[in-house]
Protein backbone atom coordinates (compact mmCIF):
# COMPACT_ATOMS: atom_id res chain seq x y z
CA UNK A 1 0.00 0.00 0.00
CA UNK A 2 1.21 3.49 -0.86
CA UNK A 3 1.96 5.61 2.18
CA UNK A 4 0.92 9.20 2.77
CA UNK A 5 3.82 11.61 2.57
CA UNK A 6 4.95 14.33 4.97
CA UNK A 7 7.05 16.96 3.23
CA UNK A 8 8.92 19.65 5.18
CA UNK A 9 9.61 22.71 3.05
CA UNK A 10 12.58 25.04 3.44
CA UNK A 11 12.84 28.54 2.01
CA UNK A 12 16.39 29.05 0.76
CA UNK A 13 17.91 32.39 -0.16
CA UNK A 14 21.42 32.65 -1.57
CA UNK A 15 22.19 29.19 -0.26
CA UNK A 16 20.92 29.76 3.30
CA UNK A 17 17.61 28.91 4.92
CA UNK A 18 15.55 31.89 5.98
CA UNK A 19 12.72 32.36 8.48
CA UNK A 20 14.94 31.48 11.43
CA UNK A 21 14.80 27.76 11.50
CA UNK A 22 15.39 26.57 15.02
CA UNK A 23 16.76 23.09 15.39
CA UNK A 24 18.14 22.18 18.75
CA UNK A 25 20.74 19.72 17.63
CA UNK A 26 22.15 21.63 14.72
CA UNK A 27 25.21 23.78 14.96
CA UNK A 28 24.30 25.67 11.81
CA UNK A 29 20.55 26.03 11.50
CA UNK A 30 20.95 28.12 8.38
CA UNK A 31 22.48 25.30 6.39
CA UNK A 32 19.82 23.72 4.17
CA UNK A 33 21.95 20.63 3.58
CA UNK A 34 22.18 19.86 7.30
CA UNK A 35 18.48 20.56 7.78
CA UNK A 36 17.49 18.30 4.91
CA UNK A 37 19.60 15.55 6.41
CA UNK A 38 18.05 16.04 9.85
CA UNK A 39 14.52 15.92 8.40
CA UNK A 40 15.39 12.86 6.40
CA UNK A 41 16.61 11.12 9.57
CA UNK A 42 13.40 12.12 11.37
CA UNK A 43 11.39 10.31 8.72
CA UNK A 44 10.48 13.04 6.23
CA UNK A 45 9.15 11.30 3.13
CA UNK A 46 10.43 13.99 0.79
CA UNK A 47 12.14 17.34 1.20
CA UNK A 48 11.13 20.51 -0.59
CA UNK A 49 13.38 23.54 -1.20
CA UNK A 50 11.90 26.80 -2.34
CA UNK A 51 14.56 29.09 -3.80
CA UNK A 52 13.66 32.68 -3.01
CA UNK A 53 16.96 34.15 -4.21
CA UNK A 54 16.42 37.22 -6.32
CA UNK A 55 19.73 37.12 -8.21
CA UNK A 56 21.34 34.87 -10.78
CA UNK A 57 24.21 34.40 -8.35
CA UNK A 58 21.81 33.19 -5.68
CA UNK A 59 20.34 30.71 -8.12
CA UNK A 60 23.79 29.43 -8.97
CA UNK A 61 24.39 28.86 -5.25
CA UNK A 62 21.14 26.89 -5.12
CA UNK A 63 22.49 24.36 -7.63
CA UNK A 64 25.39 23.77 -5.27
CA UNK A 65 23.03 23.34 -2.29
CA UNK A 66 20.92 20.88 -4.27
CA UNK A 67 23.99 18.91 -5.25
CA UNK A 68 25.28 18.71 -1.67
CA UNK A 69 21.83 17.67 -0.42
CA UNK A 70 21.48 14.94 -3.03
CA UNK A 71 24.88 13.62 -2.01
CA UNK A 72 24.05 13.66 1.69
CA UNK A 73 20.54 12.35 2.08
CA UNK A 74 18.85 9.57 0.18
CA UNK A 75 15.41 11.12 0.30
CA UNK A 76 13.54 12.55 -2.69
CA UNK A 77 14.11 16.27 -3.16
CA UNK A 78 11.79 18.72 -4.90
CA UNK A 79 13.19 22.15 -5.76
CA UNK A 80 11.14 25.12 -6.89
CA UNK A 81 11.39 28.87 -7.18
CA UNK A 82 12.22 30.97 -10.24
CA UNK A 83 12.04 28.08 -12.71
CA UNK A 84 11.30 29.52 -16.16
CA UNK A 85 12.43 27.04 -18.80
CA UNK A 86 13.08 23.36 -19.50
CA UNK A 87 16.78 24.26 -19.24
CA UNK A 88 16.27 25.47 -15.65
CA UNK A 89 14.50 22.18 -14.88
CA UNK A 90 17.27 20.11 -16.42
CA UNK A 91 19.97 22.07 -14.56
CA UNK A 92 18.23 21.35 -11.23
CA UNK A 93 17.74 17.66 -12.05
CA UNK A 94 21.36 17.35 -13.14
CA UNK A 95 22.41 18.99 -9.88
CA UNK A 96 20.49 16.33 -7.95
CA UNK A 97 16.86 17.41 -7.59
CA UNK A 98 14.40 14.58 -8.14
CA UNK A 99 11.44 16.79 -9.01
CA UNK A 100 11.20 20.44 -9.97
CA UNK A 101 8.42 22.85 -9.03
CA UNK A 102 7.17 25.40 -11.54
CA UNK A 103 4.93 28.24 -10.45
CA UNK A 104 4.60 31.72 -11.99
CA UNK A 105 6.19 30.87 -15.34
CA UNK A 106 3.66 28.07 -15.92
CA UNK A 107 0.76 30.39 -15.16
CA UNK A 108 2.07 32.83 -17.75
CA UNK A 109 2.66 30.05 -20.27
CA UNK A 110 0.96 26.72 -19.46
CA UNK A 111 2.67 25.10 -22.46
CA UNK A 112 5.88 25.33 -20.43
CA UNK A 113 4.50 22.40 -18.40
CA UNK A 114 4.19 20.33 -21.58
CA UNK A 115 7.66 21.33 -22.79
CA UNK A 116 9.23 20.37 -19.46
CA UNK A 117 7.29 17.09 -19.24
CA UNK A 118 8.39 16.19 -22.77
CA UNK A 119 12.04 16.73 -21.84
CA UNK A 120 12.21 15.11 -18.41
CA UNK A 121 9.01 13.07 -17.99
CA UNK A 122 5.89 14.24 -16.21
CA UNK A 123 6.83 12.60 -12.95
CA UNK A 124 9.57 15.22 -12.45
CA UNK A 125 7.28 18.20 -13.03
CA UNK A 126 5.48 19.57 -9.99
CA UNK A 127 3.14 22.46 -10.72
CA UNK A 128 2.89 24.74 -7.70
CA UNK A 129 -0.34 26.71 -7.42
CA UNK A 130 -0.85 29.57 -4.97
CA UNK A 131 -4.58 30.14 -4.60
CA UNK A 132 -6.65 32.75 -2.79
CA UNK A 133 -10.36 32.47 -2.10
CA UNK A 134 -12.42 35.05 -3.97
CA UNK A 135 -15.93 33.89 -3.16
CA UNK A 136 -18.05 30.88 -2.32
CA UNK A 137 -16.37 27.87 -3.92
CA UNK A 138 -14.09 30.16 -5.99
CA UNK A 139 -10.33 30.58 -5.82
CA UNK A 140 -7.94 32.66 -7.92
CA UNK A 141 -4.36 31.82 -8.89
CA UNK A 142 -1.78 34.25 -7.50
CA UNK A 143 1.82 34.45 -8.67
CA UNK A 144 5.13 36.02 -7.62
CA UNK A 145 5.03 34.66 -4.10
CA UNK A 146 1.31 35.26 -3.77
CA UNK A 147 1.56 38.98 -4.49
CA UNK A 148 0.07 39.18 -7.96
CA UNK A 149 -3.50 38.25 -8.85
CA UNK A 150 -4.07 36.69 -12.26
CA UNK A 151 -7.84 36.45 -12.63
CA UNK A 152 -7.36 32.74 -13.41
CA UNK A 153 -9.65 30.24 -11.68
CA UNK A 154 -7.49 27.94 -9.55
CA UNK A 155 -9.58 24.82 -10.10
CA UNK A 156 -9.60 25.26 -13.88
CA UNK A 157 -5.90 25.98 -13.85
CA UNK A 158 -5.21 22.79 -11.87
CA UNK A 159 -7.11 20.80 -14.49
CA UNK A 160 -5.18 22.54 -17.26
CA UNK A 161 -1.84 21.83 -15.54
CA UNK A 162 -2.79 18.15 -15.26
CA UNK A 163 -3.80 18.04 -18.94
CA UNK A 164 -0.54 19.73 -19.97
CA UNK A 165 1.53 17.05 -18.28
CA UNK A 166 2.10 17.98 -14.63
CA UNK A 167 3.10 14.96 -12.54
CA UNK A 168 1.85 16.43 -9.29
CA UNK A 169 0.22 19.56 -7.90
CA UNK A 170 1.57 21.45 -4.91
CA UNK A 171 -1.45 23.43 -3.81
CA UNK A 172 -0.93 26.30 -1.38
CA UNK A 173 -3.75 28.30 0.14
CA UNK A 174 -2.56 31.89 0.41
CA UNK A 175 -5.42 32.60 2.83
CA UNK A 176 -4.25 29.89 5.19
CA UNK A 177 -0.48 30.14 4.71
CA UNK A 178 1.18 31.22 7.96
CA UNK A 179 -2.07 31.18 9.98
CA UNK A 180 -1.61 27.75 11.61
CA UNK A 181 -5.38 27.36 11.41
CA UNK A 182 -5.34 24.28 9.17
CA UNK A 183 -5.31 23.63 5.44
CA UNK A 184 -8.02 25.00 3.14
CA UNK A 185 -9.97 21.76 3.09
CA UNK A 186 -12.56 22.85 0.57
CA UNK A 187 -9.98 24.05 -1.95
CA UNK A 188 -7.81 20.97 -1.59
CA UNK A 189 -10.76 18.62 -1.87
CA UNK A 190 -12.02 20.41 -4.95
CA UNK A 191 -8.66 20.24 -6.73
CA UNK A 192 -7.99 16.61 -5.73
CA UNK A 193 -11.38 15.57 -7.07
CA UNK A 194 -10.79 17.26 -10.42
CA UNK A 195 -7.30 15.99 -11.31
CA UNK A 196 -5.91 12.47 -11.81
CA UNK A 197 -2.43 13.27 -10.45
CA UNK A 198 -1.29 13.42 -6.80
CA UNK A 199 -2.06 16.62 -4.88
CA UNK A 200 0.06 17.99 -2.01
CA UNK A 201 -1.86 20.06 0.54
CA UNK A 202 0.02 23.16 1.67
CA UNK A 203 -0.52 26.31 3.71
CA UNK A 204 -1.92 26.52 7.21
CA UNK A 205 -0.74 23.43 9.11
CA UNK A 206 -0.36 24.22 12.79
CA UNK A 207 -1.13 20.95 14.56
CA UNK A 208 -1.09 17.22 13.93
CA UNK A 209 -4.92 17.14 13.63
CA UNK A 210 -4.48 19.61 10.75
CA UNK A 211 -2.21 17.14 9.00
CA UNK A 212 -4.76 14.38 9.57
CA UNK A 213 -7.72 16.35 8.22
CA UNK A 214 -5.54 17.61 5.36
CA UNK A 215 -5.44 14.01 4.14
CA UNK A 216 -8.66 12.42 5.37
CA UNK A 217 -10.99 15.17 4.27
CA UNK A 218 -9.43 16.10 0.95
CA UNK A 219 -8.05 13.27 -1.17
CA UNK A 220 -4.55 14.82 -1.08
CA UNK A 221 -1.79 12.20 -0.90
CA UNK A 222 0.80 14.36 0.85
CA UNK A 223 0.96 17.21 3.34
CA UNK A 224 3.57 19.94 3.20
CA UNK A 225 4.46 22.15 6.13
CA UNK A 226 7.23 24.51 7.08
CA UNK A 227 7.21 26.36 10.36
CA UNK A 228 5.62 23.66 12.54
CA UNK A 229 8.55 21.39 11.76
CA UNK A 230 11.25 24.08 11.71
CA UNK A 231 10.52 25.33 15.18
CA UNK A 232 10.37 21.86 16.62
CA UNK A 233 6.70 22.32 17.58
CA UNK A 234 5.97 18.98 15.98
CA UNK A 235 8.46 16.19 15.43
CA UNK A 236 7.91 14.37 12.16
CA UNK A 237 8.06 10.99 13.93
CA UNK A 238 5.24 12.01 16.29
CA UNK A 239 3.14 13.34 13.44
CA UNK A 240 3.55 10.07 11.57
CA UNK A 241 2.59 7.93 14.54
CA UNK A 242 -0.52 9.98 15.26
CA UNK A 243 -1.53 10.00 11.62
CA UNK A 244 -1.08 6.23 11.51
CA UNK A 245 -3.18 5.87 14.67
CA UNK A 246 -5.88 7.92 12.95
CA UNK A 247 -5.97 5.33 10.20
CA UNK A 248 -3.69 6.97 7.60
CA UNK A 249 -1.07 4.60 6.17
CA UNK A 250 2.35 6.09 7.00
CA UNK A 251 5.91 4.93 6.37
CA UNK A 252 7.28 3.95 9.75
CA UNK A 253 10.39 1.77 9.51
CA UNK A 254 10.80 -0.49 12.49
CA UNK A 255 14.33 -1.65 11.72
Amino acid sequence: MLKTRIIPCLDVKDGRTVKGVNFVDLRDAGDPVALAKAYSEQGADEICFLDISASEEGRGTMLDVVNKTARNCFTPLTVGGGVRSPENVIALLRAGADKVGINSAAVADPDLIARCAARVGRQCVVVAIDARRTGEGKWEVFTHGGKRGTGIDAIEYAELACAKGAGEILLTSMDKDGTKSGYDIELTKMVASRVTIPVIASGGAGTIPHLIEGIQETGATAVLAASIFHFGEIAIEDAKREMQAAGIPMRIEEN
Partner: protein
Amino acid sequence: MQTVALIDYGAGNIPSAQRALEVAVERSGLSCELIVTDSPEKIAAADRVVIPGVGHFKDCREAMFGVSGLVEALEDSIHKKGRPVLGICVGMQLMADLGLEDGETPGFGWIPGKVEHIPTDAGLPIPHMGWNELVVRTEHPVLEGIQTGNHAYFVHSYHMHCENPSDLQVEVDYGGHITAAIGRDNVFGTQFHPELSQETGLRLLTNWIKWNP
Protein backbone atom coordinates in the same frame (compact mmCIF):
# COMPACT_ATOMS: atom_id res chain seq x y z
CA MET B 1 39.97 -3.72 -7.79
CA GLN B 2 36.77 -3.88 -9.77
CA THR B 3 35.12 -1.11 -11.74
CA VAL B 4 31.45 -0.17 -11.44
CA ALA B 5 30.13 1.94 -14.31
CA LEU B 6 27.11 4.20 -13.81
CA ILE B 7 25.88 5.08 -17.27
CA ASP B 8 25.28 8.79 -17.79
CA TYR B 9 23.38 9.11 -21.05
CA GLY B 10 21.81 12.43 -20.07
CA ALA B 11 18.73 11.05 -18.35
CA GLY B 12 17.97 11.59 -14.77
CA ASN B 13 19.42 12.31 -11.47
CA ILE B 14 23.00 11.10 -11.50
CA PRO B 15 24.25 12.70 -8.22
CA SER B 16 21.90 10.69 -5.96
CA ALA B 17 22.64 7.41 -7.71
CA GLN B 18 26.37 8.12 -7.74
CA ARG B 19 26.52 8.96 -4.04
CA ALA B 20 24.32 5.99 -3.06
CA LEU B 21 26.63 3.68 -5.03
CA GLU B 22 29.66 5.22 -3.33
CA VAL B 23 28.11 4.43 0.06
CA ALA B 24 27.25 0.91 -1.13
CA VAL B 25 30.85 0.37 -2.22
CA GLU B 26 32.12 1.56 1.18
CA ARG B 27 29.72 -0.74 2.98
CA SER B 28 30.59 -3.72 0.83
CA GLY B 29 34.17 -3.50 2.03
CA LEU B 30 35.28 -4.32 -1.51
CA SER B 31 37.84 -2.45 -3.48
CA CYS B 32 35.85 -0.78 -6.24
CA GLU B 33 36.20 2.20 -8.46
CA LEU B 34 32.96 3.92 -9.44
CA ILE B 35 32.94 5.69 -12.79
CA VAL B 36 30.19 7.80 -14.35
CA THR B 37 30.42 7.51 -18.11
CA ASP B 38 28.73 7.06 -21.46
CA SER B 39 31.84 5.63 -23.11
CA PRO B 40 31.13 2.20 -24.67
CA GLU B 41 34.80 1.25 -24.18
CA LYS B 42 34.69 2.00 -20.46
CA ILE B 43 31.35 0.25 -20.08
CA ALA B 44 32.65 -2.79 -21.94
CA ALA B 45 35.61 -2.91 -19.57
CA ALA B 46 33.56 -2.42 -16.38
CA ASP B 47 32.96 -5.34 -14.03
CA ARG B 48 29.41 -4.22 -13.31
CA VAL B 49 27.08 -1.67 -14.85
CA VAL B 50 24.18 0.43 -13.55
CA ILE B 51 21.58 1.83 -15.98
CA PRO B 52 19.62 4.70 -14.44
CA GLY B 53 16.68 6.33 -16.16
CA VAL B 54 13.78 8.67 -15.66
CA GLY B 55 11.23 9.98 -18.10
CA HIS B 56 9.87 8.29 -21.17
CA PHE B 57 10.67 4.75 -22.20
CA LYS B 58 11.14 5.83 -25.80
CA ASP B 59 13.32 8.84 -25.00
CA CYS B 60 15.59 6.82 -22.73
CA ARG B 61 15.93 4.10 -25.36
CA GLU B 62 16.74 6.65 -28.04
CA ALA B 63 19.23 8.40 -25.78
CA MET B 64 21.03 5.10 -25.18
CA PHE B 65 21.05 4.17 -28.86
CA GLY B 66 22.18 7.75 -29.52
CA VAL B 67 25.56 6.87 -28.00
CA SER B 68 27.19 4.79 -30.70
CA GLY B 69 28.16 1.32 -29.45
CA LEU B 70 26.68 1.75 -25.96
CA VAL B 71 23.89 -0.81 -26.19
CA GLU B 72 26.18 -3.29 -28.00
CA ALA B 73 28.74 -2.92 -25.17
CA LEU B 74 26.02 -3.60 -22.61
CA GLU B 75 24.74 -6.66 -24.43
CA ASP B 76 28.28 -8.00 -24.63
CA SER B 77 28.69 -7.48 -20.90
CA ILE B 78 25.45 -9.27 -20.12
CA HIS B 79 25.40 -12.12 -22.61
CA LYS B 80 29.07 -12.84 -23.36
CA LYS B 81 30.85 -11.76 -20.19
CA GLY B 82 28.07 -12.60 -17.71
CA ARG B 83 28.58 -9.39 -15.77
CA PRO B 84 26.00 -8.06 -13.32
CA VAL B 85 23.83 -5.27 -14.68
CA LEU B 86 21.36 -3.24 -12.60
CA GLY B 87 18.57 -1.16 -14.12
CA ILE B 88 16.77 1.53 -12.13
CA CYS B 89 13.25 2.80 -12.96
CA VAL B 90 13.16 3.32 -16.74
CA GLY B 91 16.60 1.69 -16.79
CA MET B 92 14.80 -1.44 -15.57
CA GLN B 93 11.85 -1.04 -17.92
CA LEU B 94 14.18 -0.97 -20.94
CA MET B 95 15.13 -4.58 -20.13
CA ALA B 96 11.66 -5.71 -21.31
CA ASP B 97 10.73 -6.78 -24.86
CA LEU B 98 8.32 -3.95 -25.43
CA GLY B 99 7.28 -0.58 -23.99
CA LEU B 100 3.72 0.67 -24.48
CA GLU B 101 4.25 4.29 -23.41
CA ASP B 102 3.04 6.55 -26.26
CA GLY B 103 2.88 3.77 -28.85
CA GLU B 104 4.96 0.62 -29.06
CA THR B 105 8.72 0.83 -28.60
CA PRO B 106 10.97 -2.23 -28.54
CA GLY B 107 13.02 -2.72 -25.40
CA PHE B 108 16.33 -4.57 -25.10
CA GLY B 109 14.55 -7.88 -24.51
CA TRP B 110 16.82 -9.07 -21.69
CA ILE B 111 13.89 -10.11 -19.51
CA PRO B 112 10.70 -11.20 -21.29
CA GLY B 113 7.78 -8.89 -20.68
CA LYS B 114 5.96 -5.71 -21.56
CA VAL B 115 5.90 -2.29 -19.93
CA GLU B 116 2.27 -1.27 -19.53
CA HIS B 117 0.33 1.57 -17.94
CA ILE B 118 -0.46 1.09 -14.26
CA PRO B 119 -4.09 -0.11 -13.91
CA THR B 120 -6.42 2.85 -13.37
CA ASP B 121 -9.56 0.91 -12.34
CA ALA B 122 -9.12 1.81 -8.69
CA GLY B 123 -9.18 5.54 -9.50
CA LEU B 124 -5.91 6.19 -7.67
CA PRO B 125 -3.72 9.13 -8.73
CA ILE B 126 -1.16 8.44 -11.44
CA PRO B 127 1.90 8.66 -11.29
CA HIS B 128 2.27 6.14 -8.48
CA MET B 129 4.33 8.51 -6.35
CA GLY B 130 5.78 7.93 -2.92
CA TRP B 131 6.76 5.18 -0.53
CA ASN B 132 5.17 1.79 -0.90
CA GLU B 133 5.53 -1.45 1.05
CA LEU B 134 7.54 -4.11 -0.70
CA VAL B 135 6.28 -7.67 -1.03
CA VAL B 136 9.36 -9.83 -1.53
CA ARG B 137 8.59 -12.87 -3.69
CA THR B 138 11.93 -14.68 -3.87
CA GLU B 139 15.20 -15.27 -2.07
CA HIS B 140 17.47 -13.38 -4.41
CA PRO B 141 20.99 -12.50 -3.19
CA VAL B 142 20.40 -8.82 -4.12
CA LEU B 143 17.44 -8.82 -1.70
CA GLU B 144 19.27 -10.23 1.29
CA GLY B 145 18.04 -8.57 4.47
CA ILE B 146 15.19 -6.83 2.65
CA GLN B 147 11.83 -7.96 3.88
CA THR B 148 8.20 -7.69 3.02
CA GLY B 149 7.01 -4.51 4.73
CA ASN B 150 10.17 -2.49 4.04
CA HIS B 151 9.50 0.67 2.07
CA ALA B 152 10.91 1.99 -1.18
CA TYR B 153 10.31 5.18 -3.16
CA PHE B 154 8.43 4.98 -6.45
CA VAL B 155 7.62 7.54 -9.09
CA HIS B 156 6.23 6.10 -12.33
CA SER B 157 3.13 5.68 -14.46
CA TYR B 158 4.14 2.49 -16.30
CA HIS B 159 5.32 -0.82 -14.94
CA MET B 160 6.63 -4.09 -16.30
CA HIS B 161 4.54 -7.20 -16.66
CA CYS B 162 6.96 -10.17 -16.59
CA GLU B 163 6.19 -13.03 -18.91
CA ASN B 164 7.86 -15.54 -16.59
CA PRO B 165 6.59 -15.35 -13.02
CA SER B 166 10.02 -16.52 -11.82
CA ASP B 167 11.57 -13.24 -13.05
CA LEU B 168 9.38 -11.23 -10.68
CA GLN B 169 11.36 -10.60 -7.50
CA VAL B 170 9.40 -7.93 -5.63
CA GLU B 171 5.96 -6.41 -6.06
CA VAL B 172 3.84 -3.73 -4.43
CA ASP B 173 0.13 -3.06 -4.28
CA TYR B 174 -1.27 0.09 -5.87
CA GLY B 175 -4.83 -0.59 -6.89
CA GLY B 176 -3.50 -3.95 -8.05
CA HIS B 177 -0.19 -5.69 -8.49
CA ILE B 178 2.76 -3.51 -9.56
CA THR B 179 6.16 -4.97 -10.45
CA ALA B 180 8.79 -3.52 -8.11
CA ALA B 181 11.89 -5.58 -8.94
CA ILE B 182 12.85 -8.13 -11.56
CA GLY B 183 15.81 -10.46 -11.94
CA ARG B 184 17.04 -13.11 -14.30
CA ASP B 185 20.53 -14.62 -14.38
CA ASN B 186 23.01 -11.71 -14.10
CA VAL B 187 20.42 -8.98 -14.74
CA PHE B 188 18.50 -7.20 -11.97
CA GLY B 189 16.19 -4.22 -12.08
CA THR B 190 14.17 -2.10 -9.68
CA GLN B 191 11.17 0.02 -10.55
CA PHE B 192 11.73 1.95 -7.33
CA HIS B 193 14.69 4.22 -6.76
CA PRO B 194 17.15 2.57 -4.36
CA GLU B 195 19.13 5.82 -4.32
CA LEU B 196 16.09 7.57 -2.80
CA SER B 197 14.98 4.73 -0.54
CA GLN B 198 17.26 5.30 2.44
CA GLU B 199 18.40 2.15 4.32
CA THR B 200 16.44 -0.30 2.20
CA GLY B 201 17.88 1.18 -0.98
CA LEU B 202 21.44 1.27 0.33
CA ARG B 203 21.14 -2.34 1.47
CA LEU B 204 19.99 -3.42 -1.98
CA LEU B 205 22.85 -1.56 -3.68
CA THR B 206 25.39 -3.01 -1.25
CA ASN B 207 24.06 -6.52 -1.92
CA TRP B 208 24.30 -5.88 -5.64
CA ILE B 209 27.91 -4.68 -5.40
CA LYS B 210 28.76 -7.95 -3.59
CA TRP B 211 26.68 -10.14 -5.92
CA ASN B 212 28.57 -12.53 -8.17
CA PRO B 213 26.01 -14.26 -10.38
